[in-house]
C-alpha cells in the first residue's frame, strides 16, 4: 500500500493513454473493420464477411506475390547483413589494434541516415548510363557486369536488397561487436593453448557464445524486413510492373485508392504475425538484460 503511494499509478497514465490511443485502439478497430467494405467513397460501412481475405488470397490480385517479395527481401537481407555484420565485427574486434572506433564510426554511419535520402542517392548511383556503379565497372574493365539495376524486373529486387544491406550491415556489426566484447579473452587463450586454429575458434567458441546476439539481431531484422516501405517506395515504388511490390507499399496503394477494408484486413494479418514474433523478441530482450 505504501508502495502505491510512493510510486503512484498516475505516473504510468500518460504513456498508457498515448499507447492505447495510437497503437492498441487502432489495432483492435482493425480487427472489426477487416470484415467490412469500408472505403473512402461511401459513408456506409457494411459487413462483408471474409470477402477482403478472399481478395487478398485470390490469384487475380497479386498479394501472394507481394508477400513472397517481402519474404524474399527479408530472408536475403537477414543473410547478407548478418554475414557482413559478423565479418566486419570480427575484423574490427580481432583484426586491427588501432583506429577501431574510427572504423566503427564510419561503417555505422549509413544506419543513421534517413532512408529516403539513401534511396535518392542510390537512384543516382544505380543509374544505368551515368550512375557511379556502372561507371566504376566500366573503369575497371568489367563492362559485362554493368546492369539496368533498378529497371530490369529480374534484378530490381536484388538491387533493393543490396541498398538495404549497405545501410543496415553496420547496425548488425555494432550489435555483434557488443556481443564479442562480452566474451572473455581467457577463453581464446585457453583454446589457443589447446591448439585450436582460427577457424575452430570461430566455430566452437565465437559463434556459440554470440548466439544470443545473433538471435536478437535476426529477429529484429525479421520485424524490420516485414515492415519495409521507404526503401522500396523511393527506389522503384514497386516497379517495374509489380516486380518489387512489397506488403507495405501495397498497403499504401490501397490507402491512396481509398480501399480501406482490404488494407485493414491485410494490416490485421500482419498484426498477428508481428505480435507473435514480438512476443519472442521481448522474451529474448528481457533475458539478454538479466544475463548482463
Amino acid at each position: 500500500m505504501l508502495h502505491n503511494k510512493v510510486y503512484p499509478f498516475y505516473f504510468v497514465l500518460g504513456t498508457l493513454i498515448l499507447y492505447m490511443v495510437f497503437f492498441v485502439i487502432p489495432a483492435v478497430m482493425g480487427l472489426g473493420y477487416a470484415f467490412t467494405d469500408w472505403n473512402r467513397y461511401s459513408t456506409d460501412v457494411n459487413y462483408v464477411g471474409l470477402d477482403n481475405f478472399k481478395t487478398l488470397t485470390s490469384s487475380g490480385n497479386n498479394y501472394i506475390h507481394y508477400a513472397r517479395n517481402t519474404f524474399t527481401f527479408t530472408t536475403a537481407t537477414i543473410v547478407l547483413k548478418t554475414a557482413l555484420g559478423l565479418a566486419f565485427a570480427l575484423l574490427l574486434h580481432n583484426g586491427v589494434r588501432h583506429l577501431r572506433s574510427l572504423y566503427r564510426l564510419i561503417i555505422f554511419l549509413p544506419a543513421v541516415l534517413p532512408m529516403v535520402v539513401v534511396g535518392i542517392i542510390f537512384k543516382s548511383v544505380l543509374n544505368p548510363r551515368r550512375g557511379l556503379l556502372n561507371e566504376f565497372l566500366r573503369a575497371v574493365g568489367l563492362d559485362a557486369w554493368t546492369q539496368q539495376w533498378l529497371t530490369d524486373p529480374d534484378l530490381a529486387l536484388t538491387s533493393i536488397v543490396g541498398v538495404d544491406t549497405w545501410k543496415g550491415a553496420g547496425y548488425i556489426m555494432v550489435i555483434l561487436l557488443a556481443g564479442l566484447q562480452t566474451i572473455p579473452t581467457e577463453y581464446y587463450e585457453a583454446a589457443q593453448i589447446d591448439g585450436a586454429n582460427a577457424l575452430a575458434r570461430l566455430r566452437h567458441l565465437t559463434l556459440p557464445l554470440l548466439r544470443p546476439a545473433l538471435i536478437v539481431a535476426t529477429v529484429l531484422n525479421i520485424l524490420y524486413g516485414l515492415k519495409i516501405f521507404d526503401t522500396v517506395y523511393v527506389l522503384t515504388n514497386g516497379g517495374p510492373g509489380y516486380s518489387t511490390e512489397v506488403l507495405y507499399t501495397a498497403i499504401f496503394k490501397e490507402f491512396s485508392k481509398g480501399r480501406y477494408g482490404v488494407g485493414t484486413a491485410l494490416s490485421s494479418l500482419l498484426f498477428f504475425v508481428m505480435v507473435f514474433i514480438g512476443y519472442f523478441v521481448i522474451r529474448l530482450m528481457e533475458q539478454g538484460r538479466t544475463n548482463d
Partner: protein
Amino acid sequence: MTKGRPLTALASFRPGRLPTAKKVGQQGFNHVLAILICLVMYAPVHLVVVNSLKDRTDARSMSIQRPTTLHWDNYSTVIEQANLEQAFLNSVLYASSSTVLSTILAAMAAYVMSRNKTPLNRFLYFFIIMGIAMPINFFTLTKVMQITHLINTQIGIIVLYAATQLPFNTFIIYGFVESLPRELDEAAIVDGAGPLRLYFKVIFPLLTPVLVTAALLSFLDIWNNFIFPLYYLNDSSKWPMPLAVYNFFGQFESYWNLVSADIVLTILPVIAVYLLGQRFIVSGMTAGSVKG
C-alpha cells in the same frame, strides 16, 4: 591475464620464427580491408557533398570528381526553391517536442512500473513494450486521428511521433531504473519527500545517461521518419525535411546539384547528432539489441 602478456611477447622474439613480421603484415592487410569497407560506406555521402557544389551540367553525371569551381549558391537556391527554411523548422519542432514528450512520459512510467512490481504493473510493462514489434494500422489510425481532430495538424504529428517512441524508451529506461539502488528512495522518503519530489529531485537527475540515450535515438528516428507525414500531413507547409527533399527530388530530378545540396542539408543535423552522441547512440542500440 596481464601477467601472461610479457611472456608471449618474449616468446615471439625467439630466433627462427618471425611471427612479428607476419603479424605486422596481417595487421596491414586488415587495415587495408577496413579502409576499403569505410570507403564503400562513405562514398555515397561524399558523392552528394561534391555534387552539391557543382553547376547543373557538371552534376548531371553525379560523378565523384571534384567540382571545378565551388557553387555555394546551390545552397541558397535550394533553400529558397524547396522552402527548406519551413521544412527545417518543422523538423526541429517535431523531432524536439516529440522527443521531450516521449522521454519524460516513458521515464515516469518506466520508473513506477520498475519500482512497484504489482501484477498489474508487470502486465502493463510487457503490454507497452509489445509496441516495439506491433505494426501500425494506418487505416484505423486515420480514423482515430480524425475523431481526435489530430489529422493534418502539427500537434497531431507531434503526439503521434511521441507515441511511436514510447515502447522502446520505456524498455531502455526500465532497465536502467532497475540498476538504481532503492536505498535512495528510502532515504528521500525518510526525509519527508513526497512522490513528486522523490522523482524529480532524486531519481530524474540520476536517469540522465539513459535519458540522453533515449532522447538521441528518438530524435534521429523522428527526424528521419518519412511514412507518418506521408500518410497524415497533406499540407506541404507542414512537411518535415525528408518529405520536402523527396518532393523536391520529384520536381527537379535533373538538377542533381540542387538535389544534392538539399540532401546535404537534410543529413547534416543527423550527422552532427550522430558524431556528438555516438557513444550514447551505440549503447542504446545494443541495450537488449533493439531498434530496427
